[in-house]
């Protein structure tokens, strides 16, 4: 057998499973989004001539959720990159007990999201949670961290940052380990201070890792689901509802599979557009920076 055929045969089982789990759902949603398939039709798909997509365009809740999801994703990814960078720089330095320290900082990422979402719910609890207890002991009055529609989204971001920052830090740590120590030494001998080394050497060389972390985390954050479902259930007053949660509710609570498929597909398209935008932005700025550095 030709070597190429062997390679393809070896890859076939994995690729088939991947196609069934990733590709089929997208095709299925494409088809379902053109059907009415809800309690009204007895859950039997009936073609409805694109009515789902028309409904989507007029669905204020969808567009509110889209804006909220984008706000959540941008804020949490930005904070994760900043915090993750700081954490990676710290973990990269030769400290005593670095191994256990790395392991312990990694722990939030390794725990199931639901576990810590409920943990945060207790920490944010009004009035019995530790945060409010601390505020009261300082003379303030209890704050509804999870019941104030204008600010709750930020505390959801905080919980997400806590959980995924270690992952970003780890990716960046990988990047830091590829930077030769003598380059840093050379700059230091030239009289550069730490901040200058960071700006002139470390950051430019980290650009590929920062881009990877940014794109990967952006995709995940735009699909945020379990954290929000458990921490706030989308509330208060729908102010933290994400697109994925809305799609889930359409399918599992309103039992409207046609529209749920439409929402999921639309979410996927928005995701593609955001990632594409991010990618173009990175290429323009990231590459310029790196080439500038190289010349």
């Amino acid at each position, binding site marked *: 057998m030709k*070597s*190429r055929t*062997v*390679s*393809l045969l*070896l*890859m076939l089982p*994995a690729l088939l*499973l*991947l196609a*069934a*789990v*990733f590709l*089929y*759902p997208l095709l*299925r*949603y494409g088809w379902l989004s053109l059907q009415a398939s809800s309690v009204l039709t007895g859950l039997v798909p009936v073609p409805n001539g694109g009515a789902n997509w028309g409904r989507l365009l007029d669905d204020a809740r969808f567009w509110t959720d889209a804006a909220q999801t984008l706000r959540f994703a941008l804020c949490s990814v930005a904070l994760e990159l900043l915090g993750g960078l700081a954490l990676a720089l710290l973990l990269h330095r030769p400290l005593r*007990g670095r*191994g256990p*320290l*790395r*392991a*312990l*900082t*990694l*722990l939030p990422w*390794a*725990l*199931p*999201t*639901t*576990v*810590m*979402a*409920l*943990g*945060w*719910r*207790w*920490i944010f609890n009004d009035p019995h949670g530790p945060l409010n207890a601390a505020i009261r002991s300082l003379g303030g009055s209890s704050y509804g961290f999870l019941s104030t529609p204008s600010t709750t989204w930020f505390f959801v971001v905080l919980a997400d940052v806590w959980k995924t920052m*270690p992952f970003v830090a780890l990716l960046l740590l*990988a*990047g830091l380990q*590829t930077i030769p120590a003598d380059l840093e030494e050379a700059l230091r001998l030239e009289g550069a201070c730490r901040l200058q080394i960071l700006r002139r050497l470390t950051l430019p060389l980290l650009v590929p890792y920062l881009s*990877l972390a940014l794109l*990967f985390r952006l*995709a995940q954050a*735009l*699909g945020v*689901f*379990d954290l929000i479902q*458990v921490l706030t259930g989308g509330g208060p007053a729908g102010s933290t509802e994400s697109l*994925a949660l809305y*799609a*889930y509710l359409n*399918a599992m609570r309103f039992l409207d*599979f046609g529209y*749920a498929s439409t929402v999921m597909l639309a*979410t996927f398209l928005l995701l593609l557009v955001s*990632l594409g935008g991010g990618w173009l932005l990175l290429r323009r700025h990231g590459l310029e920076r790196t080439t500038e550095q190289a010349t």
Partner: protein
Amino acid sequence: MRLLVLLWSLGPLLWQLRTSLLRPEALVAPLLDGNPWTLANYQLVLSGDPPFWRYLTNSTLVGLATTLLTLLLAVPCAYGLQRLRGPLRWGVGLALVAAAMFPTVLLFLALLEIARSIGLANNLLALSLPYTALSLPLAVLLLRAAFADLPRELEDAARLEGLGLGQRLRFVLLPLLGPALASTAILVFLASWNEYAIALTWISRSDLLTLPIAIARIGGGSVFTIPYGAFAAATVLGSLPLLLLVLLAQRSIVSGLTRGAVKG
């Protein structure tokens, strides 16, 4: 600085530990008399129906099955991909990266339909099928990078010795991939242990729930009725295995992700 980082990472967990050891009354107001500490929350969780350890074994079972199946499929795929030349290699690589980034919650509805139509709902082991698919992209990318690190001459020599493909993989290449296999296995296990959306929709029988779903259910009531003490005890029990795993396999996890990031 170190202390600050530890406080940030572990603070919320330590607070759970404290909560889990307090009597319910002590959570709401400082007790005027008596000892506020108790193990009753743990007793409650462990004597529930089904007892809490059932969820741990469920998750472990699914995790192990997923890890095994993923490695079985990912190793040949990574090897094939590494040997492949031409645009297909590039295309498959790109598709794998895209799949690795895909937010999996968007897949649940179609997967649920499949599960229902072929009777896989409420089947613990069947969960490892979609889990395997979700883990495959990253696993293949990590293992391909590991295959690429092996010197080409090694395999050529083995071929000249007359070893077939299976033998070369089993006796020459795989033994050298030990560390990469270990770190891939750990990452796959973690991902499957923590998955939520698919387990939530596939499993409804309470004795088959995986840990994340069980914990979400314990806290499923309204904010005011959550038995926080019992829940915190469940959190602590559910975190312990992961704490052990992370402490023991820290090096593996870091090197696995490192390699993936460098080559990916």
